């Protein structure tokens, strides 16, 4: 990733974290190791990724977005995804209501009137558009910070190709911005959480669902000792924010037609643009309140339209999208060869993650042991729209002192590509209630990058004495216990009467059925080593330290806590 262009010396940098999304962009900076998202001159922290030209003036952000109604032809939106792509591989669906992309020798281009006295419209490549847009962001950030922003860490989706990356870096450089590093969006979201002062470094499996406007991206990430390895990803263009807008557009359009007996406002470009903007704002209102209004002046044929919708109704109409999101997330977990029971946290990121129903559905999909980190389900959740920018800003502050060569060397696959152990490593312990049944206590979890070192404190035998440390690999599997078949007689009779009114669909007998019980159980695998700790006092604990070296050799040490001596041994590399 050798960047070109202006290169300030590390000491002269002013760095930001930058998110450049299909629908919104945002900027963050760090102050005393805390990340803050910057509001632009319009007061927006979520700055629409839109440029618009009116009478030679360039507008960006929210103001440009508003021009989608009156000036769609000279308004460029949804172009981020096209950076670094050939015309033949882009999906122009979202550009239908704004400047259309066209093909100039394979280069995705837009033609707009960007001059005051437009004799000839200009044809701008997507790179040029990007440079112009980024320049506006940098200016806003520089004004806010009171000094010129020189450098940024930018987030990109995990499926961004090398070509797209290179084109984005080039476009940023052309806007006089040094790109310190491009980082993966899901990882930026995790870092935003992990960098909080109260966060602890834990081994956990995290699912990051980034639900945006045009796409939903999901990643399963092994978080091990503060390092992140992506295990599986999925990218979806069918269940995202714009599809929720569409649900509301359809709902209100139908209502409008019925009420005023007019033509379909969705068939008129300008009416549709109004519907779209209002639908989005109603949708956002429904994330906060249980009721929201919908009101458009002169929707079509000069008729004003005002209506309301409640959250329940909305959630019912949008059910397909919500279910799609659930299925999407379930499928990625499976793709990572994991089960929902393996997931410790689900971090919801992106604007659409404000939607309470989505978070609540996930809470039902995952077991109680999984934390769903979203505003609706977790009091300490960070604003999901700000996660990526914060993560990027934190990373920027971590590497702002590195020179370019150093960043390149440090982030290269030669450094980051390492062995990850496939099975958990731990020791055999006895079930608390049944001393004859052995079980597995993991110490180093699967998918931990090596070298790695983990320490565990484990209770000694009830009466003390000599203790066996049996170091083994463990494999997890899911045990499913089917419920006892219910007696038919039980469900008949009186019960039917009182619940017959609150469920009018036929899913009620499904609900009646008791769910099968699923639990994760460990299987004791291959024995790696045995060690003895002698004369452990009654009630004492034993500290076991397992170190897996880069060549997969293992160092085992064990000692009684507070006791003298201990044992140490080495297991050779396979």
């Amino acid at each position, binding site marked *: 990733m050798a960047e070109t262009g202006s290169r300030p010396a590390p000491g002269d940098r002013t760095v930001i974290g930058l998110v450049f999304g299909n629908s919104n962009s945002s900027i963050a900076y760090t102050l005393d190791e805390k990340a803050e998202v910057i509001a632009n001159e319009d007061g927006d922290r979520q700055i629409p990724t839109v440029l618009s030209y009116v009478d030679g003036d360039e507008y960006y952000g929210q103001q440009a977005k508003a021009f989608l109604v009156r000036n769609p032809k000279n308004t460029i939106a949804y172009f981020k995804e096209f950076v670094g792509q050939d015309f033949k591989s882009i999906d122009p669906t979202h550009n239908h209501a704004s400047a259309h992309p066209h093909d100039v020798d394979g280069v995705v281009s837009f033609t707009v009137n960007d001059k005051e006295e437009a004799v000839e419209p200009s044809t701008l490549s997507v790179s040029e558009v990007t440079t112009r847009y980024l320049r506006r962001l940098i200016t806003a950030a520089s004004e806010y910070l009171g000094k010129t922003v020189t450098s940024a860490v930018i987030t990109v989706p*995990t499926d961004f190709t090398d070509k797209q990356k290179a084109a984005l870096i080039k476009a940023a450089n052309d806007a006089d911005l040094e790109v310190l590093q491009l980082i993966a969006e899901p990882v930026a979201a995790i870092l935003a959480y992990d960098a909080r002062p109260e966060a602890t470094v834990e081994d956990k499996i995290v699912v990051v669902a980034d639900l945006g406007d045009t796409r939903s991206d999901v990643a399963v990430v092994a978080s091990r000792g503060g390092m992140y390895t992506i295990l599986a990803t999925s990218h979806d*263009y069918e269940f995202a924010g714009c599809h929720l807008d569409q649900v509301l557009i359809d709902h209100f359009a139908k209502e409008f037609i019925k009420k005023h007996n007019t033509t379909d406002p969705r068939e008129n470009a300008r009416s549709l643009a109004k519907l779209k903007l209002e639908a989005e704002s109603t949708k956002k209102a429904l994330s906060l309140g249980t009721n929201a209004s919908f009101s458009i002046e002169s929707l079509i044929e000069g008729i004003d339209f005002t209506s309301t919708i409640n959250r329940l109704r909305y959630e019912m109409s949008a059910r397909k999208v919500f279910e799609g999101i659930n299925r999407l997330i379930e499928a990625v977990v499976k793709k990572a060869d994991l089960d929902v029971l393996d997931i410790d946290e689900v971090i919801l990121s992106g604007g659409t993650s404000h939607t309470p129903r989505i978070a609540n559905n996930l809470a039902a999909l995952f077991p109680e042991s999984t934390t769903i980190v979203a505003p609706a389900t977790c009091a300490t959740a960070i604003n999901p729209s700000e996660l990526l920018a914060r993560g990027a800003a934190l990373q920027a502050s971590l590497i702002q002192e590195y020179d370019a060569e150093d960043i390149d060397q440090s982030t*290269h696959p030669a450094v980051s590509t390492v062995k990850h152990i496939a099975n958990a490593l731990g020791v055999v312990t006895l079930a608390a209630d049944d001393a004859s049944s052995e079980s597995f206590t993991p110490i180093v979890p699967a998918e931990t990058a090596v070298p790695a070192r983990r320490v565990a404190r484990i209770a000694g035998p009830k009466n003390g004495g000599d203790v066996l440390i049996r170091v083994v690999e463990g494999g997890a599997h899911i045990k499913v216990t089917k419920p006892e078949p219910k007696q038919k007689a039980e469900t008949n009779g009186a019960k039917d009467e009182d619940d017959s009114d609150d469920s009018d669909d036929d899913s009620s007998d499904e609900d009646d059925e008791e769910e099968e019980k699923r639990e994760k159980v460990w299987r004791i695998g291959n024995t790696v080593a045995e060690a003895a700790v002698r004369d452990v006092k009654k009630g004492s604990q034993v500290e076991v330290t397992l170190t897996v070296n880069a060549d997969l050799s293992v160092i085992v040490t064990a000692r009684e806590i507070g006791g003298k001596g201990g044992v140490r041994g080495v297991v050779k590399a396979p």
Partner: protein
Amino acid sequence: MIMATATLATQPLPVLPEGWAGEKDFNPIGSLSAATQRTIEPVGPHFLAHARRARHKRTFSEDDRIQAQEAAKKVESTNDDEISEPEDPMDLQRDAKDWKSQDHYQVLGLSKYRYKATEEQIKRAHRKKVLKHHPDKKAAAGVTDDDNFFKCIQKAHEVLMDPVKRRQFDSVDEKADVDPPSKKQLAKGNYYKLWGSVFKSEGRFSKTTPVPEFGDENATKEQVDEFYNFWYNFDSWRTFEYLDEDVPDDNENRDQKRHVERKNTNARKKKKAEDNARLRKLLDDASAGDERIKKFRQEANAAKNKRRLEKEAAEKRALEEAKAKKEAEERAAQEAEAAAKAEREAQKKAKESAKNAVKKNKRVLKGSVKEANYFASGAASAADVDAVLGDVELVQGKIDPEEIAALAGKLNGLTVADEIKSVWSAEVKRLVEAGKLKEGDAKSLA
């Protein structure tokens, strides 16, 4: 960030087994079994610390760098080769209005997946087609009014992404069927493979999963039983409304509408019944030629026969053993009796010979006093004879046959009266000393 301390485990460690030994209390036994090359995201303070350690006094050569990149397990599927098939020119000409007869999988390029296509594959295939056929792109290229195939794509996507509609289509997607094998095919062997794939495709209609597999010649009886049990009780979600005749849309002609609806309902029922019958026939055919069933039956019969024969043999053996036992007992009794008899006779003989010996010895004793002329000088008087013989009988009465024999031994061959007398007097003296005779008894012999 706060560094995590040690994890805590409440389940106790086991006690060291009796006799466990290890060099310095440690025994290396195995090694780690598997690892995957993956790429850590180069983000966050812990990664940067890792990078510092990894780079410490080390520069990676270009080769190292390329190798590392190539060895890493990829998580992004970068190519969509799996869903690329040439487009059917006939499809490209399709009229979208005629969507019912379109092969939705083929339209999206998923012919080889069909019911097996995952939601992700459908979405990716759809997107690929959208990228290629989007009307806005064609408009940008100057081609207008050509969104017919695009509509076909959208319809295919709509059907396949809706679980209910997809099942309806899958129900009638005969291209996913695997025909039952012909006699000719079966003649070449491969019975299990051929039928196996038939049932594998039929299994797509099962409400319950997993569907047991047909298996091969090595399947156990339990597996085969489970298979046929499952299939003879097959619970299918297959429905036939996809083939419904269109119900007229206008509210005017309600009777006609009702008529078509009824017709559709009946047609669905009929098709469902036919489908059930078809499946049953498949099963009958498959089981009729299933050598495993024959084998298990033969084995069962053989086992039964074996049990019967074993039982008979056991009975016979028991009978023979009883007989032999009885004979042996009889023989033993006879032998015992004979032995007892012989014993008795031997005892009798011994007694008799002892008696004879006593008699003989007594004759020697009596003969000895006669030889000594009853210890009289000159002719012995009747009184002398009587007294001596009386004392001889007295002594004889006091001693047992052995002593008699011993005495007779001493007397035998003696002819001199004094010598005979001294033997007798010694004997009398012995008996007196032994308290068997009183002093003065057997005076004539003393």
